[in-house]
């Protein structure tokens, strides 16, 4: 293993790690701190990494900073749940509210490439009506985006990641066939399929961002099943190995282990660059535009931490909404055991999906929808579920764990509604950089609870239909964070406009999961990347018209 990526800066001196070749480097453009670059981007995940690539390809000068390390997956990633905790954002955060949320491994990454380095690769489009949830479906808020335009950007991202998926997708308006063939189903996925057929609803192989055939420097997925702790073969099409190599080739600079602590502004109220901590000291990068893409907790935290006399409530916060409307997605599950050997540890964890309850509205006593997917938890996660969620310990835990290879489960990604009381605020405690740490407050509303009840009852029927035994509900898990800097068409009720440009400060942009006004019932990263592609196109057009 080469020098520790967590303590030693790697992308420096005109070169960055070659993620595809052991010990190799690729050349990287270098900008001086006092050079007035076009864009400083904070965060290199689904939002920031994608935008860095597109803007660099359009000829803008770009420096993208990430607090996390620059991994070499082939050399740095072990097949080990505990060791790979190094991928997660584990700086201290306080959680409270009626339903405090689990962060860390469950939620956010701290790596060049962001949380996509350890995400589960599920790559789904929104249901078109969700972009107008308020006017078409009667809840939440409307997005300032048109689904037909988004449909084009989804196709762009699906092509960029060569998504493996079915030839025809059962729900929603027509979409092009997925670029790569779907993956084989494992037993856990077949259980979902059989249950869905027994209940008369449709299911499909999940569209996944891991290749089912060779692609460039990526070998096909070999079903290691360790996707959520980092892919050590580069089959997974994470931001780290897709958008970022393109960004470097197009002249972007990426700075690893670079934590941005503050955004600076001038007397005219325009931002002028970012203060960042790297190699043991604080530095300042000048920039004509700053993009914040730190995910739904770090983005509002940075905006709030950048408060000044002129902007006492933080930057871009005249609406008072920065940090508010934090949305999780419900992630409840129903588990059971089968007489069959299932061995869910083989292959990507969620190979089959049904979006039935995202598209069917009949008989629901709640707004919104959910998808559910087959599961393949690794031992530490599974034992955590049996102990901390189900309360087992001692011999009863050991007895239950022994059934590991027979266990099956269905888990939702469920839409939770935006509520202003769910929010990110600052505490008086400080982190290792001396910055105030965030407090994350979360409580479900009645609608969320009704959706969860519906999903648990339905998934239970599905497991019963395939003959599972000892069925039990896991009632308190959440995933994916969104909201906290929502987009909209009115400066008093949103933080950014459709172009991810802040209403208050024209050269400050936000481009990540924070901008979602609602979350829908699908995993968010494809939508985040599609929005980033759209934002890049808009910036190019605005620049051409002299409107940046």
């Amino acid at each position, binding site marked *: 293993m080469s020098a520790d990526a967590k303590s030693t800066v790697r992308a420096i001196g005109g070169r960055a790690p070659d993620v595809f070749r052991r010990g190799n480097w690729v050349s990287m453009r270098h900008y001086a701190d006092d050079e007035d670059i076009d864009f400083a981007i904070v965060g290199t995940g689904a939002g920031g990494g994608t935008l860095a690539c597109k803007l660099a390809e359009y000829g803008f000068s770009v420096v993208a900073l990430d607090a996390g390390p620059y991994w070499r997956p082939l050399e740095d990633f072990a*097949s080990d749940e505990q060791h790979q905790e190094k991928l997660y954002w584990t700086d201290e955060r306080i959680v409270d509210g009626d339903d405090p949320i689990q962060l860390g491994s469950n939620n956010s990454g701290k790596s060049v490439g962001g949380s996509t380095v350890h995400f589960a690769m599920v790559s789904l489009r929104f249901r078109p009506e969700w972009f107008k949830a308020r006017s078409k479906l009667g809840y939440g808020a409307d997005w300032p985006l048109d689904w037909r335009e988004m449909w084009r950007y989804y196709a762009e991202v699906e092509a960029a990641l060569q998504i493996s998926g079915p030839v025809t997708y059962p729900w929603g308006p027509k979409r092009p066939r997925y670029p790569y063939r779907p993956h084989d189903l494992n037993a856990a996925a077949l259980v979902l399929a059989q249950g869905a057929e027994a209940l008369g609803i449709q299911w499909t192989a999940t569209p996944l961002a891991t290749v089912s055939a060779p692609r460039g420097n990526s070998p096909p997925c070999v079903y290691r099943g360790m996707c959520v702790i980092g892919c050590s073969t580069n089959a997974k099409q994470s931001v780290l190995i897709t958008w970022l190599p393109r960004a470097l080739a197009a002249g972007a600079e990426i700075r690893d282990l670079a934590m941005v602590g503050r955004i600076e502004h001038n007397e005219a109220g325009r931002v002028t660059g970012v203060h960042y901590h790297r190699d043991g000291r604080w530095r300042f990068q000048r920039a004509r535009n700053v993009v914040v893409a730190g995910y739904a907790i770090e983005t509002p935290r940075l905006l709030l931490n950048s408060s000044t006399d002129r902007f006492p409530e933080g930057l871009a916060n005249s609406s008072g909404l920065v940090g508010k409307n934090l949305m999780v997605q419900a992630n409840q599950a129903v588990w059971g055991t089968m007489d069959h050997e299932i061995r869910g540890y083989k292959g990507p964890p969620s190979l089959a999906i049904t979006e039935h309850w995202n598209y069917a509205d009949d008989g629901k006593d709640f707004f919104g929808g959910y998808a559910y997917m087959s599961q393949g938890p690794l031992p*530490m996660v599974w034992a955590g579920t049996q102990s901390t969620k189900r309360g087992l310990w001692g011999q009863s835990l050991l007895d239950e764990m022994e059934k590991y290879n027979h266990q099956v489960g269905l888990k939702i990604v469920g839409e939770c509604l935006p509520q202003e009381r769910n929010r990110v605020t600052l505490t008086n405690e400080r982190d290792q950089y001396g910055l105030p740490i965030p407090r994350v407050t979360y409580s479900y509303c009645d609608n969320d609870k009704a959706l969860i009840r519906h999903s648990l009852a339905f998934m239970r029927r599905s497991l019963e239909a395939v003959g599972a035994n000892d069925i039990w509900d896991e009632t308190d898990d959440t995933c994916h964070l969104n909201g906290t800097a929502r987009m909209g068409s009115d400066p008093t009720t949103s933080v950014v406009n459709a172009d991810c440009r802040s209403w208050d400060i024209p050269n400050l942009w936000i481009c990540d999961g924070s901008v979602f006004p609602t979350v829908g019932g699908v995993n968010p990263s494809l939508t985040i990347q599609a929005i980033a592609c759209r934002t890049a196109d808009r910036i190019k057009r605005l620049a051409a018209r002299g409107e940046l």
Partner: protein
Amino acid sequence: MSDRYPGYDVMAKRRSMSWNDQTRAVIDARLAIDPAAHRFFTETEWQTLRALCDRIVPQTIARPHPVPLAAMIDEKARANLSEGYRYAELPPLQQAWRLGLAALDGEAQARHGRRFHALDGLEQDAVLTAVQQGNVRNPTWRELPPKSFFKKRILHDIVSAYYSHPTSWNEIGFGGPTGPRGYVRMSFDRRDPWEASEARPGREAQARRENARVG
């Protein structure tokens, strides 16, 4: 406990295509942990912690590599490896463990007049059940909510340490590390030759033979 995967040893794959160098380094280090090592906890705390680990995950069967649970928790506390979030009602990791071990002793004293490690197994389990359900009597819990401490620290830390260790993988028939080699046979009741074979009734001998060939 039954021997569901007789003769299966995930370590037999150590030199196979299922393990790469970085995985070997990580697991070798875990297997080399000295079960008696403790640098964070005091002798008193260490006694209580060891007794606690024995109840949360009993390791009654003699095995070549028992999981050094208490030493793993000591190292986690020493290195202050927090998960990245903290329930507002709980103190930080190190403080929670120190307060919690003292409170377990306090609870044992209040109920039985002896420290936790000096109780028998049934008495210890009764104390732990009371803590899990929040039915505590000792005032030391005022600074530490018992239910949260039980769930978020005791269960979370001890159980995840156990299932990070190859010995536990043998018990549950987990295939262990996979890199670069993954899996081929994915459907119901299929196993690759490098996976654990289950001793279903009537096929114990066959399972043992197959497990001897795993590598």
